[in-house]
């Protein structure tokens, strides 16, 4: 008996070594299983997923794609990437492999064109009219302006002038401002198109400078910045060359840097095909 045990000593040593290695793994796995089962009913998987995939702006894209055919993916444009970012299409419902370039989603893009526009803009107030003449980058798309803070109940007239020509002029008050849960991108004003959507201004319209005038300004500290997409300012990185002329349809209520647009040249075709676009807009 003792002889047999001695003979098998090497086996016992090996088994002891195995146990020594396996036990910590086993106990950590059992603990993890126990913890997992404890939190499985309270675990906010959807919230966690939203956070994990937040940089892909999945929620906003999903809110649009649910209205499209199950194989259609909008043309997604991120600051440094256009197209299917890390397989974002595969995280959406359906099987979205057919990119429709007429339906464009700008994601994390719509920001002040200049991070600090003091050196790029001249600002003057005459007869309560605030005029700002700004230089523009080489390549850009202007989507509107952002006020540094909300203003009172008064209404104002704003005009966008380029090449001595008024491109857009309209009256607005604080009810026209767009609010975003993402505070640094709050208090935005878009430029109404002749229909109920919003226009964008590009290089063809303005070239190097733009003059924006807002009437009936009563406070001297009334500030605003031009918002949009710009290669130079860093808001649109390398993708500017691929950005088509477009009409803004709606934006992400959580973060107004994200918006849905339609190719300007095919607006009617898209409106006829996708009724949700018309219906999504509240007059």
């Amino acid at each position, binding site marked *: 008996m003792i002889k047999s045990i001695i003979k098998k000593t090497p*086996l016992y040593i090996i088994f002891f070594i195995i146990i020594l290695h396996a036990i910590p793994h086993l106990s950590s796995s059992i603990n993890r*299983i126990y913890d997992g*089962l404890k939190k499985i*009913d309270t675990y906010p*998987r959807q919230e966690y997923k939203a956070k*994990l995939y937040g940089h892909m702006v999945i929620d906003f894209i999903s809110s649009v794609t649910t209205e499209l055919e199950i194989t259609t993916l909008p043309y997604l444009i991120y600051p440094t990437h256009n197209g299917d970012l890390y*397989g974002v299409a595969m995280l959406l419902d359906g099987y979205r492999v057919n990119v429709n370039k007429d339906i464009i989603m700008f994601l994390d893009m719509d920001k002040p064109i200049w991070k600090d526009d003091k050196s790029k803009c001249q600002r003057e107030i005459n007869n309560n009219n605030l005029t700002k003449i700004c230089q523009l980058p080489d390549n850009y798309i202007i989507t509107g302006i952002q006020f540094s803070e909300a203003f009172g109940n008064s209404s104002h007239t704003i005009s966008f002038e380029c090449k001595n020509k008024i491109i857009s002029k309209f009256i607005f008050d604080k009810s026209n401002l767009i609010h975003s849960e993402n505070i640094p991108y709050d208090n935005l004003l878009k430029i109404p198109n002749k229909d109920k959507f919003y226009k964008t201004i590009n290089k063809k319209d303005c070239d190097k400078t733009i003059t924006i005038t807002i009437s009936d300004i009563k406070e001297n500290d009334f500030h605003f910045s031009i918002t949009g997409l710009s290669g130079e300012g860093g808001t649109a990185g390398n993708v500017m060359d691929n950005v088509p002329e477009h009409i803004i349809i709606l934006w992400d209520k959580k973060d107004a840097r994200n918006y849905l647009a339609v190719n300007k040249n095919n607006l009617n075709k898209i409106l006829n095909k996708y009724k949700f676009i018309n219906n999504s807009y509240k007059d």
Partner: protein
Amino acid sequence: MDNVIYKNLVFAVDFFWNNYFYSIVFLLIIPFFFSYLFTSKSKLPSDINWLFGIIILSIFIILLHAHGLSKNLTFIIIYILSIAGFVSFIKNMNKFNFRMNILSLKSLVYFISFIFAFDALLVTYFEPIVAGDSLAYWWSKTKALYQWQPLNLFLSPQYPHLGSTIWMLAINYADGNEFVGRGLFATLQAIIFISFCFALNLKNLDLASRIVYGGVVVLSYIFLVKLEMGGGLTFTYSGYMDWLVAIIPCFGYFLFGYRNILQNKSEKYQLHVDNAILIVFFSSAALVKAEGYTDILIYLVSISLCFVFFTNKKIEIKNIVPVIISFFIIFIIININNYIYLINEISIGNTHGFNVKGILLSYQNIDRTPLIIEYLIKSTLNNSWVYITYMILLFGIIIIKRFDLLVLSLLPILLYYFFIYLVFMSTTSPIEWHLSTTLFRLNYHIIIMMIFSNIMFIKFLLNKYNLRNK
């Protein structure tokens, strides 16, 4: 407190019932009876026949999908064939060994390993898929198959998709939740690995040796299931298919080699059902990932040389016929992809082609050698204990003079090292980038070969040890 535990328990049971129950029932029953149509005469253990069922069921689905059959019709055919298999099983029930010893070592090893597999299952639930390539390639195929999209709409139709089909089978009855299939990969890996370990003849081992053997199997599985590929992603359940493309041919090769070279030296090679099953296993790597073709080529060269070196078969026409048929089966299976591309008019480009010109001219890049060696050393040091164990056991195998096993193990490993060297000598991509992104994944194949080899080494060493102590 008790109330909270009860509530969690009820929720957990409800959760697993809703997400996994139908998938597990489907995966347990259908592949087994589906394969029984082919394996009724097999002497292989039931778990291997079940694995074979998973593979041929997936190949069957891939083929019917490629031919444009609807999903409903495909599954109806599967159910009909499975029922036929079930009827055949009932008829032969008296031949089936029902002795399911729950207290056997194999069951115990399965039980312990399933704890780790279950851990992996929970991890996949809590950690949604993040790996970019996995999303874009493997999950995309799974999703496409789940929604039964035509092949021309697949994001990458030119890649094979056996692994994604298995993933689809798992999520098909789980509301398409990706984590269900990804989580079950750890269980599938456990079954592949453990079924191999216990398909070796352990009858000569005494209880103490068996317990040591079982411990080694569990420890190896822990290593396999937890092995990381970088960036916090595991090989097994991150959604990549490297684990499957490495383990399937390795399983087929070593079991085929064990049964035909190590066990039956003097008998002539016969293409019986068991060998045919192992050949299908071995060659189906080509249907998982393009690297599978390389694995098959390497294993094929290795097994052929082992046959030449270590068996006493006389070269006669009647001996050559089963060999030719075996090669023909391999040829058919590895060309299933090409057949699918052909009937669907899909251009595969240079995805599957060997860069022959690049390989021939690779001597011009000889200056890359030190860098390749540096990365190989880094990769080796990451899992140094696998290499150390392998070297020690290899030394043991030399001492007990099992040179057949030594060559069977060492040949594919050396050939794979040579392949890795050729890949990086001939690559047209920036060498540092290619090495840093790919080498560890290629080296994973060698790690798998070493782990399977280690299991066989230990089995033979324990055998010798038992014989000496008798």
